[in-house]
């Protein structure tokens, strides 16, 4: 199966006041068609930058982004616009991402006219109604002529999703798409997105800081955990949430409070050596996580950068210590078999 989108060895620098800041370090990600890839990590880990790059909103300073195997930097003319239409983005804040003086109809019909998908107002109205139904904004007749301020947060976010769907995309990059809406309606928004995936064969890149949401949304899909501009662990959602290998992923999972008093109060904790995330302008040498890592081994972790390698659990992990422990276990097992 060819990947629909791929990031290959991306290094990215932001330039601010003549100083360069590297925000992505050798990031490679593969997005398979009709699947969900969740990018998880703390603020500043590079998840939004990666999302923007996949959507073509940022050009990487090093490495390539491939759309169906073609480098997007070399795409021109019709091919380029096909790519730009195929990958759409849904932003975090539905209060900021919709133009407050445009009605729902105007917001949704503009891209339809712009891309020649409809030819007159009548067709546009029919298509906009369809789109509203698709994102469960019913009855569409009541909402089509409303302004954003007349809608609730959840309804606005549904309009943003409908706007992304106007140009019949194949991939949707959803950047913290549910973090601003009320808890009581988050699940139904996620369900709508999942339903759309089934119905339209969409592929999602879902960016979130909430592992519980990632688990629920991806379900059997992939989760990639990022830390300080690097992917440090990637695997299927059940593996990442039940058998995390990298100490950072373990810290994230154990730190998460759960909506059940008994479980959350008796959860095993994985205490970090330092509370504060280092600055991207001074990324620690070796493994970037070593100053906070409870499994830190001097002489290795602070000298050599660990590469992503397959783990026993079925994920890929970049950690010297867990890899070595696994190797050690295997050696013990091999020896016991021999004897």
């Amino acid at each position, binding site marked *: 199966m060819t990947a629909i989108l791929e990031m290959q060895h991306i290094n990215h620098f932001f330039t601010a006041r003549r100083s360069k800041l590297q925000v992505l370090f050798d990031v490679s990600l593969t997005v398979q068609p009709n699947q969900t890839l969740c990018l998880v990590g703390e603020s500043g880990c590079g998840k939004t930058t990666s999302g923007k790059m996949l959507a073509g909103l940022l050009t990487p300073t090093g490495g390539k982004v491939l759309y169906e195997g073609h480098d997007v930097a070399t795409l021109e003319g019709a091919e380029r616009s096909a790519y730009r239409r195929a990958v759409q983005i849904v932003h975090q804040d539905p209060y900021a991402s919709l133009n407050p003086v445009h009605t729902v109809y105007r917001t949704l019909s503009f891209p339809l006219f712009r891309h020649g998908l409809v030819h007159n107002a009548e067709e546009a109205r029919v298509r906009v109604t369809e789109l509203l139904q698709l994102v469960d904004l019913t009855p569409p007749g009541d909402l089509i002529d409303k302004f954003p301020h007349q809608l609730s947060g959840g309804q606005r976010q549904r309009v943003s999703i409908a706007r992304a769907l106007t140009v019949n995309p194949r991939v949707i990059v959803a950047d913290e798409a549910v973090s601003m809406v009320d*808890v*009581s309606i988050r699940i139904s928004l996620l369900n709508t997105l999942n339903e759309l995936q089934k119905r339209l064969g969409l592929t999602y890149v879902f960016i979130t800081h909430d592992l519980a949401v990632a688990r629920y949304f991806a379900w059997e899909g992939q989760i990639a955990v990022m830390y300080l501009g690097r992917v440090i662990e990637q695997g299927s959602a059940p593996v990442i949430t039940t058998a995390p290998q990298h100490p950072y992923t373990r810290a994230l999972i154990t730190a998460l409070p759960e909506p059940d008093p008994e479980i959350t109060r008796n959860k095993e904790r994985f205490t970090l050596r330092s509370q504060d995330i280092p600055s991207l302008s001074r990324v620690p040498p070796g493994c970037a996580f070593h100053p906070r890592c409870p499994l830190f081994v001097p002489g290795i972790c602070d000298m050599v950068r660990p590469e992503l390698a397959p783990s026993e659990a079925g994920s890929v992990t970049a950690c010297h210590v867990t890899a070595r422990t696994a190797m050690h276990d295997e050696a013990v097992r091999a020896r016991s078999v021999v004897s």
Partner: protein
Amino acid sequence: MATPVLTVNHLSVEYQSPRGQVKAVRDVSFELEAGQTMAFIGESGCGKTTLALSLVRLLPKAARIVSGTAMYQHGGKTMDVFKLNGGQLRNYRWSDCAMVFQSALNALNPVLKISSQVQDTARAHGEHDAHKVEQRALSLFEMVRLDPERVYNAYPHELSGGMRQRVLIAMGVLLHPQIVILDEPTTALDVLTQRTIIDVLKQLREEMGFAMIFISHDLSMAAELTHKLVTMYAGQIVEIGPVNPVFYSPMHPYTLGLLKAAPGLHSFREDLASIPGSPPDLIRLPPGCKFAPRCPFKTDLCITEEPPLVTHAPDHASACHYWEEPVVARKAFHDALALVKSELKSEKQP
């Protein structure tokens, strides 16, 4: 029973709006015991922030406390927070009852160093010994796991969001308050930062023994931190009780709905659901139970008659005609969960 440090009786707050009176808080009564932590949960617009602001008398001009009392009791003195005059109110705020606001970025003055903001606060409340205040601030910063010297001499922009939030918490408890009100203390923070703040709050509470009122829509955090849980809907308390009974046998369908809408790492996909519909218009409230239009258990009775808040179990009250329904539904869920877990276990050990 411990003595309550704060007793709120029949509190109602309204906002003046062009369309009419917005009834943001309606007839709310509760007791906060010394050293106890209480969480108020509900959707945005349910009145929880208005309630918190009224307890420190920081409501905007358009709001008015229509009725009710809030009796504060500490060290032999008893006073009604709503009847305090300017000077008394200044004494009450921060030294008796401190509030930690949601947005740590906006709550600190960006052009003043943390040190001068700490000193200003102390001076405004009658503490003029700068050296003593500094020592106290430094030890508090240590307690909230900050690098004391560095943070004390920093400007807010030099600190991360999580650090600023911890500075605010440390400043909140600077004058040994009896009550600390926290409005969404961890929203918009990363998981690990959130964990630090939860741990810091637990530790401070243990060492200083203050009572906490905690406003949130995050059930997970409430599950971890609180003794008592209050669910608010359309400005009213619809359920109040100790944390475990409310989580395991909720007596109000709205609480049940919130529980089902909160995904955990181990929740099953089929068990999660959103609450359909949206909250009522707080200007023209419908008669009967305000939650009825969104409720799976509603009958004609609910539409005509508003259920009162009735105690059904020790300390556990709910305002629902059919309070047993959510209890049964949740019990069925937990039984099914236990069954699945035991099956998983027996599969693992053949």
